[in-house]
């Protein structure tokens, strides 16, 4: 059975957009700046990529935090380890994520897992450095007070040093999360979907369909801003007495 010829002609490279059967308006046909009505009518197109993006960001930031936290505990009291960890995570941070995605492809295959590994590695530097700075900023007097109360080194770490380092730790997570929201758009090149699918596959590859580019970029930026506000609020609720600048 032959496909409807009109439909075939109307389809872009990867599939769908200028498809009249889906209610394409003249705005879509003429590729105006942004077809707001069409974007709302086709709300479903944006949902899955947005959820995929949220998944990529939350899993990789959570994993990055766990690893960086482990590294920070390991280097706490072993200060000679700090330059090593900063160096290694720094190299991972320097490698452009698109390159990291593709270098991992032969090892971990195409897909979400590869993207999450790359984004996690990318996060380590920012989170680790902020945790270390937070611990280093704890006033010596607070440590002495804890020791005076008879705390062991372990108690000192968990009950005094880490709680006092929370503002810096949150500041690090905030930077890492916002950066990851932006970088994760490139996960499309690792076959992991996300908002890069909207900007690249539905937009650029689809005869530069402007509405998709604007909507995809808009959602990504809105997501970054939302995370930023979330952390700022969290920081103010948890440690209202102090604001810090991330390193």
């Amino acid at each position, binding site marked *: 059975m032959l496909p409807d010829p009109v439909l075939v002609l109307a389809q872009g490279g990867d599939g769908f957009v200028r498809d009249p059967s889906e209610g394409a308006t003249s705005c879509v046909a003429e590729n105006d700046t942004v077809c707001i009505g069409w974007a709302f009518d086709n709300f479903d197109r944006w949902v899955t990529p947005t959820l995929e993006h949220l998944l990529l960001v939350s899993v990789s930031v959570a994993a990055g935090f766990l690893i960086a936290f482990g590294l920070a505990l390991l280097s706490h009291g072993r200060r000679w380890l700090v330059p090593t960890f900063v160096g290694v995570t720094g190299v991972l941070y320097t490698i452009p994520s698109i*390159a990291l995605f593709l270098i991992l492809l032969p090892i971990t295959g195409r897909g979400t897992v590869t993207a999450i590994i790359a984004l996690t590695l990318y996060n380590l530097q920012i989170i680790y450095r902020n945790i270390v700075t937070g611990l280093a900023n704890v006033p010596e007097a607070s440590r002495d007070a804890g020791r005076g109360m008879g705390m062991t080194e372990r108690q000192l770490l968990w009950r005094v040093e880490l709680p006092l380092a929370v503002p810096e730790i949150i500041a690090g997570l905030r930077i890492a999360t916002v950066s990851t929201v932006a*970088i994760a758009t490139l996960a499309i090149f690792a076959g992991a979907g996300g908002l890069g699918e909207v*900007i690249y596959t539905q937009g*650029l590859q689809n005869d530069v369909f*402007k509405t998709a580019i604007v909507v995809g970029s808009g959602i990504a930026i809105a997501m970054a801003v939302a995370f930023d506000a979330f952390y700022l609020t969290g920081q103010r609720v948890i440690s209202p007495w102090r604001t810090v600048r991330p390193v």
Partner: protein
Amino acid sequence: MTLPAADVIDSFSGAVEFIFEPRDAIGVRGQVGGLEQVWELMWTQIWISALALAVAVAIAVPVGLYFGHRGAGELLAVAIGNAGRAVPELALIALMVAFVGIGVLNVTIALVILGIPPILTNAFVGVRQVDRGAVEAARGMGMTELEVIRSVELPLAVPTIMSGVRTGAINIVATATIAPLAGVETLGDFIINNANYGDDGLLAGAILVALLALAFEVALAGLQRLLTPRGLALEREAARSTA
């Protein structure tokens, strides 16, 4: 989903071969890969990144220094830094292609835009962190405001400024990789327009981009060493050894 070690080694040796030996292109006439093409694409990525970084520094450092010196515009400086982090490179390039156009000039402008925020914010913060006592001492010695900025604040802020420049460079080199989306053939061509290059080309592109980014980082770390005032370097070293 994990492939056997032998396949992984095959992939990487294929990529290395692609870098050194030209081979027949896939689907079209002609040859791809080999040092000549690699160098051509790499050179484009190097000069466009270096140019964009230089322009970003030329714009962001004076502005950051000025506002840092005046102690004004802190909210704005921080907001620009945050905004820069929130804009995806892919989105900026795609918006550029959709609304401004493709080509070397447009890509360079996009790269400059991505490079400015971290440099501007760090220049501002770097100057603000300079010991006020040092600034007052300089004024007491009869320096003009311009001399204070040039001879006291700028040198003391070098480590912070350079860390912003390095972050800016990372952004720029990474984004120059997706420049082929906007018609500028950098190493990313092996990745973005992959149809003629195959899997070896894809991996080769990724490896070359990673090496180039690390080379930029090493070069800028060296530059930072050269630019950091000797006294400041000694002071930091002393602080580290007693910590």
